[in-house]
């Protein structure tokens, strides 16, 4: 179970991890500044297992993989959004940061709600509001990537079999 951190539409990668901190790339360093320009309390108070809920176009802007890395290293279990910016979507799947697309859950969830998310089935259970939501399934190829644990293990496996 995790607490919800809720943000609006078009949360950009400069908000997730400002470029001024990207002179280093260690995950812990990035986590310490995660969401800083959108919400200064986040990095200090986020707990392992918490959930970020965003609106549409989450992760727009730069291609920096530092963004999903920062979120993952901050202990966030899953990001739920109405939709994702293209590169963020790829990056999150590639590094094994779970993300779900579920507009209904975004509308039906408030900051501070306690939610339980089953990543396998995509079921989102809002314990505070006693409601459940079903996230969209991934296309088969994406699911294969996710099951492999990200792009690097996937490519490694493919190279081995080639």
């Amino acid at each position, binding site marked *: 179970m995790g607490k919800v951190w809720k943000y609006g539409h078009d949360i950009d990668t400069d908000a997730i991890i400002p470029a001024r901190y990207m*002179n280093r790339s260690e995950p812990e360093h990035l986590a310490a500044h995660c969401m800083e320009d959108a919400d200064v309390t986040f990095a200090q108070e986020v707990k392992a297992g918490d959930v970020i809920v965003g609106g549409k176009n989450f992760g727009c802007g730069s291609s920096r993989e530092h963004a999903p890395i920062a979120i993952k290293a901050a202990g966030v279990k899953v990001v739920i959004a109405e939709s994702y910016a293209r590169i963020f979507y790829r990056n999150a799947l590639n590094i094994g940061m779970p993300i779900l697309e579920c507009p209904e859950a975004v509308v039906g969830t408030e900051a501070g709600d306690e939610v339980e998310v089953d990543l396998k089935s995509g079921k989102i259970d809002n314990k505070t509001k006693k409601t459940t939501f079903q996230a969209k399934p991934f296309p088969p190829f994406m699911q294969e990537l996710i099951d492999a644990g990200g792009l690097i293990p996937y490519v490694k496996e493919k190279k081995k079999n080639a």
Partner: protein
Amino acid sequence: MNPFGKADFGFGHEKEEIGTKHGSRITRFRAFSVIEILKQSGNVRQIGPPEFCDQRPRMVQANPCAISPGECREAIREKGRLLLMGMTISEKILAAHAGLDSVVPGEIINAKLDLVLANDVTGPVAIQEFGKLGIDQVYDKERVTLVPDHFTPNKDIASAEQSKILRDFAKKMGIKNYWDVGRVGIEHCLLPEQGLVLPGDLIIGADSHTCTYGALGAFATGVGSTDCAAGMATGEAWFRVPESLKFVFHGSKFQPWVGGKDLILYIIGKIGVDGARYKAMEFTGDGIRSLSMDNRLTISNMAIEAGAKAGIIEPDEITLAYVKARAKRDYKVYKSDPDASYEKIYEFNSEDIPLQVAFPHLPENTKSVDEASGLKIDQVVIGSCTNGRLEDLEIAAKILKGKKIHPEIRCLVFPGTQDILLEAMRRGWIETMIQAGAAVSTPTCGPCLGGHMGILAKGERALSTTNRNFVGRMGHPQSEVYLCNPAVAAASAVRGEIVHPREVVNNG
């Protein structure tokens, strides 16, 4: 609505006017699809039977079929052609690199890459991921390129360490196209200039503005470090074939001082920062064809600011003249078929587009310069991968000639590459700028991403020719960035507030 997403066989068009906006017609072309027809008949779960897919064998792999060949054939007989549909330039490039005759939007393909790039921010992470693959060489030493441009010349110890990772890797792998300080430029200015990105190429770069190369008729898209690592290792990447959106500019006459930057800001203002999310934007019309390469590169550069995967322009004589002088390998010119399918077509009259200013904190917050007029600013930035090319400097120099930067303004100029800087110097433009009171820097991303060399304090306001105005992009989270073209930037630097260039240039 088609429940199968866009992964269908379009085979006809229905033109539909969906309204007018600011005098510009917006039409949508709806592609019929066999799926839609078959769906109405009831029992379709997936796309096309193998018999029909002989020209598209991978469709069978990507979308195994669940309808009977008879039903499919029947639908096609009824509605005309199915397999001979035209393709967009983006679809053609993707198909060619995947070894296929054709592709359709929604299809997932694996394709060969002509170039893979990373910079000093994304490169170290990519190199770390590359290491996990247990491979000791990149797929091609000529086609993997590393450009340390963001925090260089290194601003501190941490960024020096990052650059060192890049430098050491380049050396170890024997990477041919690596440049260090003194030769390096901003990646998206440098690679086209060096003839490393060419028409018809398929390119991924661990930098979101990789889409810049679309201006040359290449399909180029930004990815993250892990995709980049896999690309460096295998020379391949997976793609979801995007739907295409067409943006047509009618008329080769523009308002004075209007350039590529205004056209792309205008589009983003209309469709929003996710208006082209996951799609390929295609810019066309005699308006686009009348533009120089520098202006076209500016347009494609900001396709990502509308969420697009690519921002592509068909090559023409202007493109080929630019490329011929630079290319060191073969390239291929692709053009969209007249019957290619677009998800939407936007049409604009070139002459209607006024000078644009994008207000904080999203590039879609555009207004005409007259609406922004009088807004006090503290800093003006001219340069970056959006507007750091020779013509941009020329425009700025023209406006600054014989004038002084307003005493309360810091005006920073960042040429895109050493060659651009040198040429601007030869033509006297750098001298003009320095005499006007501007600071001219060595090529670097610098303040564009709030990295170094021109960071804003709390409450300060910058007018910039860069491409993003997110919260904190150029410094303190409570500073502001306004985006515009080089003419507006230079004129405003003189006036000390945002102003139309005609106010500063007597004969403008």
